[in-house]
């Protein structure tokens, strides 16, 4: 039946700008009811819309299981602040946070900040990788049991378990440690769209989940193999990385679609290959690609969120569940658990205990 590993599904809940939290909450709850792994909320400094991480923090207490993955710009932000905000999203959602790292290459965005001019994507993705690296070190900088509250000695923390990170990147440095103690997942989940070569290089090194584009199962399988090959060069095993195919889906006129399938509509920048058809057609595609071992799952961007997400959950997902291809509930509580990713140990804890054993 299945290739022996669970199918992962995620959905984007952005769309035309909205500023009322209930709109986003409704979509996230719908995705949660469909037992999806996570919802994403796209963002950019130059596009109308609220700050995505804030929106997902706003809906976190009103949801229970769904993973929450905002897009975060690494080009014009402070790595230290980014790391704190993502860690805090993990705290307020009790272990359901991720972040999708992205870069800003345009003069329009650079002008909003006035600190640096636009630079090539390659350079910015190198920097984004460094932001992810520094962020992960900050998340590790407090060992899990750093807070001791030892009344006998009057010590609140064991300072041997809170570490400077002394990160030196090419365009920034961070001394550390974090202000925010280690978040519930150890490290929130890092997602990167690995479509372009520089982004894929950063993703293979730093991302837990990589979104890719493909128009056939063969192409998807090749992209996935490429991600695994690149990850291996950084000492990362294939099982540490999930690869999801990004599809922009239009389930609007199922009855009239002459031929359901890929790329039969306008290409949507940034949201993956365009799919048009009915919810059943989408379930067919997912089943077929998944059985062919082309990907670990799919990141779906509904063209019209309110309409298409409802069809995805009540149509496509219900059918996949009926076929026992997709879970009917979240067996765990954290996003890492949904994705089958281990909770990493703090690198500083490992180094310290290794040192103690020597």
């Amino acid at each position, binding site marked *: 039946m299945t290739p022996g590993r669970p199918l992962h599904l995620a959905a984007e809940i952005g769309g035309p700008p909205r*500023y009322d939290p209930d709109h986003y909450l409704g979509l996230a709850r719908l995705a949660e009811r469909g037992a999806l792994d996570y919802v994403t909320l796209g963002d950019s*400094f130059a596009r109308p819309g609220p700050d995505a991480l804030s*929106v997902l923090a706003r809906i976190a207490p009103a949801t229970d299981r769904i993973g929450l993955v905002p897009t975060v710009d690494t080009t014009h932000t402070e790595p230290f602040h980014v790391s704190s905000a993502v860690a805090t999203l993990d*705290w307020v959602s009790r272990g359901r946070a991720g972040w999708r790292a992205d870069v800003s290459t345009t003069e329009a965005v650079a002008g909003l900040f006035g600190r640096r001019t636009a630079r090539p994507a390659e350079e910015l993705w190198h920097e984004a990788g460094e932001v992810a690296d520094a962020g992960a070190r900050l998340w590790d900088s407090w060992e899990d049991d750093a807070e001791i509250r030892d009344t006998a000695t009057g*010590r609140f923390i064991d300072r041997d378990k809170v570490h400077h990170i002394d990160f030196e990147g090419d365009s920034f*440095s961070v001394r550390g440690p974090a*202000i925010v103690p280690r978040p519930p997942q150890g490290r929130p989940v890092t997602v990167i769209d690995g479509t372009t070569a520089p982004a894929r290089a950063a993703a293979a090194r730093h991302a837990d989940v990589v979104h890719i584009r493909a128009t056939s199962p063969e192409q998807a399988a090749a992209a996935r193999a490429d991600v695994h090959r690149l990850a291996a060069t950084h000492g990362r095993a294939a099982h540490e990385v999930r690869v999801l195919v990004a599809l922009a889906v239009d389930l609007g006129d199922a009855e009239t679609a002459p031929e359901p399938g890929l790329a039969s509509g306008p290409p949507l920048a940034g949201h993956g290959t365009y799919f048009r058809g009915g919810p059943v057609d989408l379930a067919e595609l997912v089943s077929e690609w998944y059985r062919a071992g082309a990907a670990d799952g799919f990141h779906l961007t509904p063209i019209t969120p309110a309409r298409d997400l409802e069809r995805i959950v009540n149509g496509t997902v219900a059918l996949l569940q009926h076929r026992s291809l997709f879970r009917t509930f979240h067996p765990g509580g954290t996003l890492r658990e949904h994705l089958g990713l281990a909770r990493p140990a703090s690198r500083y804890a490992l180094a310290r205990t290794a040192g103690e054993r020597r």
Partner: protein
Amino acid sequence: MHLAAHFPGVNSTTVWSDPRSGSQIDFASFEYLARTAERGTFDFFFLAEGLRLREYDGRVHDLDVVGRPESLTVLNALAAVTDRLGLAATVNTTFNEPYELARRLATLDHLSGGRAAWNVVTSSDAFTGENFRRGGYLDRADRYTRAAEFVAAARELWDSWTPDGRPRPFEHRGRHFDVSGEFTVPRSPQGHPVVIQAGDSDEGREFAASSADVIFTRHGTLEAGRAFYADVKGRLAAYGRRPEDLKIMPGVTVVVGDTDAEAQERAAAIRRLQVSPQNAILALEQVWGTDLSAYDPDGPFPTSDPVPDSEFVQGRVRVADPLAVASRWRALSREKGLSIRETVIESTTRQSFVGAPETVAAELTAFVDGRAADGFILVPHLTPGGLDDFVDRVVPLLRERGAFRSEYTGSTLRSHLGLAEPVGKG
């Protein structure tokens, strides 16, 4: 009277050794204290900020409550579990950029239905700067010029949408910022989030008089409060503002007991827990700027003098004149025969309101009636249950006296504070 609740994060006043002391990190703690404040119809909930952990002699300081989540993210989550309570975040202007912060604050204002506030702080030591791209290069004077220009730029962004809901290009070219483009968030429910200022220097007071809606002070005694109140309110006219346009709210602590005597006893016990033997030595090190761990907290003061420009203590402002403080402490200790620890307790005890509920309610009201404050930011010594007594026992008395609201009459923080909504540029 206006009231706000401070959630004690990183500090030396939370009594973490008390069995009732809960987590300072888990969202459940924030939710509990915020709901308590909202039950008490408080104006707002306040979060402080520190961007580098304190250190002594190059090592992370380990005696106080330490570690806290990032404020704006916590406040957005709190917006989901509260309805009326204002949500105030302390955010530094030195290590942020106007476009990003204006956007995050406008987002909070939208997502909370008009309850956002920003406490503008300026700290910029090189020590904190080591966590940031820009580093810590601003000198003291520049901190406030950057802060003022930062707030002005943020206001230009908040004002940049047309009344019929379209973004209008903005352009701000100044000494510290050179930004232009379109702001991506429409005018928020309050027009501008409420602006709070915390800082006591002349520059700080001037900045507050020109730009802030609320000023958070440390002046706790009636006399000091009255002087500060008169001084700050007197500065407003120069900016075309009325005295009621800026609310003065000192940070205070409250200890309630069944009787005044019982409350005094409790307060003394709390002080002893706050100034543990280890913390007493540390307070001394903060003045002396050197390692004094060999000293007995129950014994006499060191005979050596403080090291003037020591970097032994980092991440917290060292006392302005260590030699003067040292001689004051020595004198106090000699005069009253106090040990190191007793001296530290006696000389660092802040004004707080201690007594039976009736006493506390009467004193708070006297401060407001006596023009020493427009309200208070309450700093509990326990997280998250530290305001239970106040809300259950003092707030009803304040309401009976007609000194404090019995229910919210508006839904935005500006309406709680009685502040006008800023006029848009139209």
